């Protein structure tokens, strides 16, 4: 049996060992994550930067890359295609975030109270959220066809076919709404968790004081949900900005270039036209925007942690 004295005698020795080992141990623990990051994030990113400032075509992609500096990036940014894709990206992101969060909040409030209905509906929503984007996109492409289910149902009410994926700005809006539809379940789950965490006595007090539901929502629920809205907003923004799969399967950036966003333009330049430098330059700008948004997100998380 170890005596108290013995334990005291050994403690300083253990402490010294730990003092020596801890810094080295931390380094070892970080090594796998560091290697993972370096291999799958930092190296590709460095290559992306290298490619965007070099003249790279199918001819030399596996050979020597001629340095052209910022000319490649300037060349990519100065095109009408880039400007159109940037505007499209902005519209797309606003729709996905706005409808995704608005829909998520509305659904969370409807499903606030636990019960069979809420459980069943949430299960269905999680199912649609868990489906790969490509499958969701293909399904919706068929649903939104002028001979598809949506227009067929509208036809029952004497509504003429709507060319969801063809007319004017509608293709971009339609794809964004479908993308938002997949954001809604995730937002619902997060908002509902936040709502269930809300102090019931505050809500009860508001009702006792005669507050109408709209006033409770505006003056109590939304302020209390503010941190959740911010975090979800930034995450949705990131998700929407880099969205590619829905556009690829539903419109392929068309008609013409009507639904081409920055990630899709980058793909088309690099992998359809083999203009790797321009594709990399557009991707780099896209990454820059995403990194900026990610920094905003991290700052917000940090702020929330400090206030908690």
């Amino acid at each position, binding site marked *: 049996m170890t005596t108290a004295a013995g334990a005291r005698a050994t403690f300083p020795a253990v402490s010294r060992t730990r003092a020596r080992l801890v810094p080295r141990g931390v380094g070892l623990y970080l090594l796998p994550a560091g290697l993972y990051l370096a291999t799958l994030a930092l190296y590709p990113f460095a290559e992306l930067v290298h490619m965007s400032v070099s003249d790279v075509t*199918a001819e030399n992609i*596996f050979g020597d890359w001629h340095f052209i500096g910022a000319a490649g990036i300037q060349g990519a940014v100065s095109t009408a295609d880039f400007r159109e894709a940037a505007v499209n990206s902005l519209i797309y992101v606003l729709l996905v975030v706005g409808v995704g969060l608005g829909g998520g909040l509305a659904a969370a409030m409807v499903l606030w109270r636990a019960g069979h209905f809420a459980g069943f509906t949430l299960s269905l929503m999680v199912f649609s959220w868990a489906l790969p984007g490509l499958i969701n996109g293909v399904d919706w492409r068929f649903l939104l066809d*002028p001979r598809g289910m949506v227009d067929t149902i509208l036809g029952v009410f004497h509504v003429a076919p709507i060319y969801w*994926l063809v007319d004017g700005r509608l293709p971009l809006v339609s794809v964004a709404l479908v993308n938002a539809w997949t954001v809604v379940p995730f937002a619902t789950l997060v908002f509902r968790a936040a709502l269930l965490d809300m102090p019931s006595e505050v809500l009860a007090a508001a009702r006792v004081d005669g507050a109408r539901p709209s006033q409770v929502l505006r003056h109590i629920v939304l302020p209390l949900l503010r941190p959740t809205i911010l975090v979800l907003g930034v995450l949705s923004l990131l998700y929407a900005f880099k969205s590619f799969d829905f556009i690829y399967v539903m419109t*392929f950036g068309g*008609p*013409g*270039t009507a639904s081409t966003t920055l990630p899709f333009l980058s793909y088309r330049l690099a992998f359809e036209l*083999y203009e790797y430098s321009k594709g990399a330059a557009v991707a780099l700008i896209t990454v820059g925007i995403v990194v900026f948004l990610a920094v905003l997100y991290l700052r917000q998380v940090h702020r929330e942690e400090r206030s908690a």
Partner: protein
Amino acid sequence: MNEPDKGSLFLDRRFNRRQLLKGAAAGAGSLAVAGSLAEFLAACGGNTGTTTTAKLDANTTGDLEVWHYSSAEGVKTVQDYSALFSKKYPKVNVKLTYVEFSEMPKRAIAAAAAKSGPDVFVYGGNEVNAMFKAGVFKSADSYWQSFADKGQFPDGVITRFNSKVYGIKGYVNLTGLWYNKDILDAVGVTPPKTHDEIEATFAKIKAAGKVPIALTGQPTNQGDWTAFPWMSAYGFSYKNPDAAAIEQAFTLVGNWSKKGYLPKESVQWGQAETFNRWSVGDVAFMENGNWNIGPSARTIGSKFKYGTAPLPSGPKSHGIFLGGEALWIGAFTKVPDIGWAYMQETLLSKDGLLITLQESGGIPARKDMANLTEVTSNPLLAAYTAEVKDHSAEYPPEAGQAIAAQAVVAQNWSAVIAGQKTPAQAAKDTADGVKANYKP
């Protein structure tokens, strides 16, 4: 690995393919119109006879990987090629790997980066230039030079880089006009022969409650392939992208869309979707390829009567791209002899080309197959062989680097059909884009 010649990286066809085709066609007075593709294309004579790869025999063993993009029912054709090959080389294990068409160049280039890839490619897209430059292919020149049947193949189906043979098409494909005879008979019209006849024909069909035409409006190279005959009918070419000519073609097709002759949703259709829509039975015409002969028999059967006709003529002689799948030896194959044997026994052989003809309607390029009953007696092929004679255009367009220019054409074609751009704006954008991107 084949090292691209850094000094002159361009597609060397020795002759301008279009001139060759036209010249051969013009001098083909003695040829029958139907079934004589090879003779139209033939530019040089040659001996005939069975050939074999000397080093190989029935006891040859090995593994051979073939990349192809024939999915669903089309895969039977590739399987039949392999069965044909296996008859002669039963101990060679052939592995067929499906790679989606648009993914093939990307996968091939990525594989070349890792110094790997299949032994043989079956590929007929417009990205062969990029694939060659990335070192995807091995030259088949030495095999070709000693190939006893090489004289059977016209120069127009051989792809050369730096004067060396790399890819060979055993058959050609092109687009034409398919019609639903039941609808035409009910309405009392015939396939239009000129652009001037189109409006009246389509108006009658529309008035009868049917859809006049389906074609591909996708902003991809399938859209460009579909658009080219209509655009070239007004004088457009990649070397001379005249905005006025383009505007006339775009006005024609834009009006079809506005008047409901062409479903706007065709901007989402590739050639397969176009065929699917037409095969429903309420669409009078479809611009599509001879490769639908097999699928039509299987899908439509006796649901309605159908036929094919040449595309209507415009003010100027139009061009129709000549497609078809070529065979290529992979740059990193360890069994190039077996790869060449596969090429010989499948798409370069009579038996292999008969498989293609019977299963998908591919028109054999071999001279000695021009007068086969299977070719001359098929009424569905007659329109196509006539088009080859009068309107064939080389692909990729005009032997140039055209991928980016083709994308511009396809995007504007798509935008006009959808009503996103006026014909005038789309024509200007197309002319500017083609001038900026096409490299002869």
